[in-house]
């Protein structure tokens, strides 16, 4: 594994690579905000905020297209090699994952518009909020690894995804119970269940981002590294 410590001889190339990473981080910020606001809109049944989230998703999509164009242009003009090549190709993947997380937020916002009243127990909303907070921590930690990889931290993020999955399963059971208790809850609970599923998927994308960050820095596969460590234990 070799990480570059020095700068390119061609300074404009160096600037473009820096710009690419900055673009990812900016996009990450937009996505984090989208998930946070979508969850707030859901738990408060705030239709105005939900509309804003849906509207803002267009900006995230635009940001992703911008990054794709930037990456394709760099491949064509710079013929990147080694770590630069990995950074550019993996950035395309990261941007796709972020765009998908943005879609998850939009999906939650759309469902919020379908939820009409508040006769669901606040406890169920708090479960979704808790899951959203956990996913946000995961996305944020994943993005930090794109700028500076910490292998142990990267592995921890991947392992923590199991917690997100477990939380989803426990919410699933809770919603099911609630629906059985009172069939009038079925519609709203189904919406909430889909929202939880969206958050669970967002968590999966966060682990994809960590894997891409690991690949950028090492040229290797994080899943392989995790397997090796498991065998050692």
């Amino acid at each position, binding site marked *: *594994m*070799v990480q*570059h*410590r*020095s*700068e*390119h*001889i*061609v300074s404009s*190339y160096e600037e473009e690579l820096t710009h690419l990473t900055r673009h990812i981080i900016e996009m990450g910020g937009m996505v984090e905000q989208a998930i946070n606001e979508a969850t707030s809109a859901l738990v408060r049944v705030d239709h105005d905020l939900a509309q804003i989230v849906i509207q803002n998703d267009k900006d995230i999509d635009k940001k992703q297209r911008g990054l794709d164009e930037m990456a394709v242009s760099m491949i064509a003009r710079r*013929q*990147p*090699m*080694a*770590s*630069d*090549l*990995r950074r550019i190709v993996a950035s395309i993947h990261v941007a796709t994952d972020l765009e998908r997380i943005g879609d998850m937020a939009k999906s939650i916002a759309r469902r919020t518009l379908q939820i009409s009243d508040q006769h669901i127990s606040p406890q169920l909303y708090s479960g979704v909020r808790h899951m959203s907070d956990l996913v946000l921590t995961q996305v944020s930690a994943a993005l930090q690894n794109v700028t500076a990889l910490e292998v142990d931290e990267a592995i921890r993020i991947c392992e923590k995804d199991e917690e997100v999955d477990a939380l989803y399963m426990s919410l699933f059971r809770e919603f099911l119970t609630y629906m059985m208790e009172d069939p009038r809850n079925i519609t709203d609970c189904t919406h909430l269940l889909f929202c939880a599923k969206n958050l669970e998927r967002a968590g999966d994308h966060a682990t994809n981002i960590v894997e891409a960050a690991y690949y950028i820095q*090492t*040229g*290797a596969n994080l899943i392989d590294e995790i397997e090796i460590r498991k065998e050692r234990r």
Partner: protein
Amino acid sequence: MDIVQDQTAAATVPGASTPAPAGEPAARVVTRDVSVFYGQKQALFDVSIDIPDRSVTSFIGPSGCGKSTFLRCINRMNDTIDGCRVSGIVELDGEDINRPDLDVVELRARVGMVFQKPNPFPKSIYQNVAYGPRIHGMTRNKAELDEIVVTSLKRAGLFEEVKDRLDQPGTGLSGGQQQRLCIARAIATRPEVLLMDEPCSALDPIATAIIEELIDELRENFTIVIVTHSMQQAARVSQKTAFFHLGKLIETGDTEQIFTNPRHEKTQDYITGRFG
């Protein structure tokens, strides 16, 4: 030129003379601790490398890194340079090529070379290709010689373009055609190894693409070593890549690995265009 033999070198280098791993082509050229001195100045330091059979190995590195000097060790072209001294072991098919009683002319028939600038002889196209087989006495009659000339020109992808003017001077061809003529001339003696020192640097992109296509075809029958300043070219044509820096072999490996995930920081800095 003095040849300093250090017969113990191979024994002290880990992996020397070990067979190639399963699935890998056997090494055709093996070098151990090869150093080159121009007078007092050491240009190359202890280069040990196995060059696999029937594949393309590229040497890359900044100007003055020793890659061409090392290439010339493989067919003793450094013999022609005054004050140049080579130490270490260079083996072709297990045979030490620096042995004092070795016939250098015969060696250079077995290890052909193509240079940066196309350098056809001021003779006809036919004579350019026929020259090697003739001086090495490879043919008994004109028919056999004709056969070698035609086959070599075909293999070099030039025959169709020149078949009606084999008696015209080779120097009248375009740059790309002249370089293919030089390749035809080099392969006419049926060498085992073909050394190419920046063979495309004087050619336009189309002529370069034709030569690269040719290199890819030739590797079925020859062991090819190419020195190139174009990393894209090394990435395109070679299966193995060796990176030289300041006279030392820094890293060698599968081309794909070198260009996607080099192990050494110097390799990384060079191929990505960073300050070393």
